[in-house]
């Protein structure tokens, strides 16, 4: 449990890791999401430390299975370990990941202070992923998955997900 903030990932493993995406947000690879805290290969076995986004997130089991399958396809075994400390934070989502998320239709997490203001309805700052307006309001703090909140745009009237800041 002494993982640092910077993940320790073998460069050779990156192409395979990049081929595995989040089942709920398929545009994000597991690397974009920042859930891989360690991936090292020793004697043809890939040891992966996976940090869950939310404790009960069902996507974690799927990600584990997908990783195992991806490495099996190139003849490598995997040992996956779930690690809780340090706890995953939305800060670990890559910048590229945040951009892909926005294009996909999910507003990327704001910083902690802005996030609180947005979720408490104090400020209209969450940008609609459809028309770009910030004239939006919170419909529910919990959206289609635990990690998202549901918003609605008051200009174009479209509902959209906002990925909540987790820090």
């Amino acid at each position, binding site marked *: *449990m002494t993982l640092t903030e910077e993940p320790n990932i073998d460069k050779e493993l990156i192409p395979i890791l990049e081929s595995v995406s989040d089942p709920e947000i398929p545009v994000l690879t597991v690397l974009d999401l920042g859930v891989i805290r360690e991936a090292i290969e020793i004697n043809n076995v890939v040891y992966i430390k996976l940090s*869950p986004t*939310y*404790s*009960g*997130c*069902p996507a974690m089991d799927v990600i584990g299975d997908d990783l195992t399958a991806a490495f099996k396809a190139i003849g490598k075994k995997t040992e996956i370990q779930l690690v*809780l*400390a*340090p*706890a*995953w*934070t939305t800060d670990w989502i890559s910048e590229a990941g945040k951009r892909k998320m926005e294009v996909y239709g999910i507003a990327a997490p704001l910083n902690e202070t802005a996030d609180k203001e947005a*979720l*408490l309805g104090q400020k209209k700052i969450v940008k609609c992923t459809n028309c770009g307006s910030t004239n939006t309001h919170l*419909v*529910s*703090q*919990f*959206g*289609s*998955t*635990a990690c998202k909140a*549901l918003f609605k745009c008051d200009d174009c009237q479209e509902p959209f997900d906002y990925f*909540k800041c*987790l*820090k």
Partner: protein
Amino acid sequence: MNQNLYNYIIGIADNSLILGQRLGELCGHGPSLETDIALTNMSLDLFGQVRSYYQYAAQLANDGKTEDDIAFMRLERAYKNVLLVEQPNTHFGYVIGKQFLFDVYHLMMLEKLQSSTDQTLAAIAKKSIKEVSYHERFSSDWVIRLGDGTEESNQKMQEAIDALWRFTDELFDMTDDDKAMVEAGIGVDVSALKESYYPKVSEVLKEANLTVPERKYFTRGGKQGVHSEHMGYLLADMQYMQRSFPGMKW
């Protein structure tokens, strides 16, 4: 094995398991789609946390039992959750009232548990606190919305708070395992949280135009495994599949 530690973990985890089960009952039955999803998301968070606790307990016990055995195969008396979390959902006011009265406590407890000398418990607490702070915000928000809403919503919210209030004091009872764990620097002295719990709860109730109950009599027993009449039904529901098909997996 450190029996005190094992019991301590079970005590914390059982609260979340049973509350999570109550929330899960609302799947498909919430008053609106958004609330339904929110409540079941919270249930999922709690179950996720519970899995970490039970996995740790199973690892300590090392007796061949898994997290699922601990969750599903115990008899009623072996569950050590507080009476509050097993109370039925009755109506939405009760769902929110129960959640709120527990969330405020849960958040305070986890804040302290983060600095446990037990690395695993500290890690679970650090992970869980991020989720539970959303729960607390959600339930406080609804208490205010209902209390400060229509005459009917105010009356129903008040009724739920009045009915559930008698279960709050048990949250701060210290079992022998709790005491041993506090002494070892592992556990949280929950009795010390009481001082800040009631002012915090009262603050939200006042904002919600609700009356803070003045009841002085409190019901307790869950921490000793002596549960209310609702617990048997809850367990029957929860344990049915595992008892019918032992070891089944989705």
